């Protein structure tokens, strides 16, 4: 786990507290850390170099605001500049304002996720009240055409009936004529993955472009791509004149520096991002959030969205009601446990919380309590509903039964019950006190602003 950039920068600036302005040396030291953070995020080294030089110039001589730590101030400058570079405030929606059928061509390296993205894009366009036709033009990879046909069936979106022995250019041409006749207003062309240095295959894309004249030519790029992203993006852009980029696999933990690299060498906007395996996991791109992510600053917005996405509203309301009705008992506790578990690993969740990286570092080498949670759930599962609603009835023989049933020891059951009792007492006290009482509980020296 890396230190967060803000911690490193705070360390750099610790010595200049109380001074009014950033000197050249202060900024120099800070920029070294910024450079490292960007390189760790896979931003291309040339892009990093230019970026750091530009920010350095801006940051020297800036006033250090008293209310902020200088580290945070530099980060703000860096973050804003990053977001600006990635197109914050610019139009990045798909441009489909042309005579139908409007063509959208997806291209990229092998394994970037073109075919899956075609399916996601078709679903998105149908939700926008368009009628898309999927066109499989990858005749090289075994079963690539079949893959798009299966996706089309799953989504109930028509797929042009091409065969692997056809010429990709002919497929696209025929599909366009077919869409014209049948009244489909959008063509989504799924091209074969190819290396940007494969001249023959790049020529094929140029021919498809000349023939079908797609309105959008989108590069599909893997968010985990390293330094080579600039070469790939440059080559595709030079030969095809890209209109935009779709960044895929952003649901992992890659910091996604490729976004900045691609954007800065092509100047083309990132229009959409792939954030999951499900077919509706294609979202709009937010430069500000991406900037935070590249800097490893955590992403509270994404965390909240993730929570909202996994815990559906009804279930949340039900949980809240149950909590009010029954109070905090082992039953409600288990529901919460399960809801948290569904959101992903604790490590990935903690990674989204600013500053949590530090806490995790302090636990160095310690396993996150994933296994512990499993044990806790097993113990609760081995209780009867009555025991879950009121744990006070759990006596010695019940404890033995629960331990046996969950494959744990009586000590484990005891420990859980003890911890739960403490948590319950605290919950009760907080409920009783309300926000006003909470202040009293924290004491006058708490220093909280309310």
């Amino acid at each position, binding site marked *: 786990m890396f230190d967060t950039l803000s911690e490193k920068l705070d360390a750099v600036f610790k010595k200049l507290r109380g001074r009014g302005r950033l000197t050249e040396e202060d900024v120099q030291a800070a920029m070294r850390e910024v450079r490292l953070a960007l390189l760790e995020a896979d931003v291309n*080294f040339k892009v990093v170099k230019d970026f750091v030089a530009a920010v350095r110039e801006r940051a020297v001589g800036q006033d250090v605001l008293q209310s902020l730590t200088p580290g945070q101030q530099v980060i703000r400058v860096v973050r804003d500049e990053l977001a600006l570079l990635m197109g914050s405030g610019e139009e990045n929606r798909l441009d489909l304002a042309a005579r139908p059928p409007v063509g959208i061509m997806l291209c990229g390296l092998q394994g970037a996720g073109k075919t899956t993205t075609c*399916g996601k894009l078709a679903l998105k366009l149908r939700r926008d009240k368009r009628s898309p036709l999927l066109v499989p033009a990858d005749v090289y990879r075994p079963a690539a055409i079949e893959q798009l046909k299966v996706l089309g069936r799953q989504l109930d979106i028509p797929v042009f009936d091409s065969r692997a022995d056809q010429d990709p250019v002919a497929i696209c041409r025929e599909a366009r004529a077919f869409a014209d006749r049948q009244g489909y207003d959008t063509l989504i062309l799924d091209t074969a993955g190819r290396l940007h240095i494969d001249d023959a295959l790049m020529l094929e894309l140029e021919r498809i472009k000349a023939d079908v004249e797609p309105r959008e030519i989108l590069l599909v790029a893997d968010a985990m791509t390293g*330094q080579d992203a600039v070469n790939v993006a440059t080559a595709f852009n030079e030969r095809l004149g890209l209109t935009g980029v779709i960044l895929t696999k952003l649901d992992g933990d890659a910091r996604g520096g490729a976004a900045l690299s691609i954007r800065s060498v092509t100047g083309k906007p990132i229009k959409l991002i792939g954030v999951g395996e499900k077919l509706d996991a294609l979202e709009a791109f937010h430069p500000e959030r991406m900037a935070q992510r590249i800097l490893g600053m955590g992403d509270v917005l994404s965390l909240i969205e993730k929570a909202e996405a996994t815990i559906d509203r009804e279930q949340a309301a039900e949980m809240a009601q149950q909590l009010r009705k029954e109070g905090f008992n082992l039953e409600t506790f288990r529901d919460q446990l399960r809801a948290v578990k569904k959101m992903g690993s604790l490590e990935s969740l903690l990674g989204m919380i600013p500053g949590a990286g530090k806490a995790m570092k302090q636990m160095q080498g310690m396993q996150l309590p994933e296994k512990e949670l499993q044990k806790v759930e097993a113990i609760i599962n081995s209780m009867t509903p009555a025991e879950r609603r009121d744990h006070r009835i759990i006596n010695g023989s019940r404890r033995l039964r629960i331990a046996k049933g969950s494959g744990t020891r009586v000590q484990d059951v005891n420990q859980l019950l003890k911890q739960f009792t403490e948590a319950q007492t605290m919950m009760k006290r907080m409920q009783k006190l309300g926000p006003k009482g909470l202040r009293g509980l924290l004491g006058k020296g708490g220093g909280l602003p309310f």
Partner: protein
Amino acid sequence: MAVGLFGRLREGLAKTRETLLGKVEALFQGHPKVDEEFLESLEEILLGADFGMPVTQELIAALRRRLKNEREPDQGRLREILAEEIATRLPAEQAWTLPAQRPCVIMLVGVNGVGKTTTLGKLAAQFVGQGKKVVIGAGDTFRAAAGEQLQVWGERAGAEVIRHAEGADPGAVAFDAARAAVARGADVLLLDTAGRLHTKVNLMEELKKVRRVLAREIPGAPHETWLVLDATTGQNALAQAKTFRAATEATGIVLTKLDGTARGGIVVAISAELGLGVRFVGIGEGVADLKPFSAGEFVAALFRND
């Protein structure tokens, strides 16, 4: 006319300069002395090949140390030292040979789109070419038409493919494939798995289950679990390698797509930090383009002039 010729020449030179070796050479021409400026430029070259900051800094430090006593190090010497230092960070050179167990079970794992299915198809063709009897388990039941893709590879290679319907339990596929491999007296069972991001806990758990199923059916299985890595991947590959190794006890790496402009420097970082060896590298679309890894050749390729 003269301008055209000049332009072509420059173009040719520019292409050479884009490679690592070309860059080092160009750097040397501009900076005959190995000074701070030189090392800084070298650092950028290494970072540009995805070596990552820690390994890059180690290499620069080693170079600095070893060149200290040489008055005027020449280009060849510099290159030699750099190649040596990279090679020592790669696992010892020894070609991988098929373990003696029959059937020997090899399982491929990795994130989405790295080339697991294609690699598996090529492996199958190579093993069949060596006179081995191969059974393939189509363990990717998630991605649309992954089974069909493997079926095509199986037919090309002449290996039986055990498939279930889409959305089926991969553990059940592993079970049937293991049973089939034993019943047919196969030498090798190759098991494909669905691509998954290493951050998806439940999907990593699924891999553990598949492993348990295999172990129950065939003692010691899977005998090899290879993490397939895309050479264009950057620093995230390190996180992938760590998590997959922890969850699946991966025994090696297959590095794919080395035929582009990516240099795959990240495997040096992975080898240095995790000690995971590279078994095969993919350098093209053909079956024969999946080659046994050799540290020497890899370093040569890192510096290759194309």
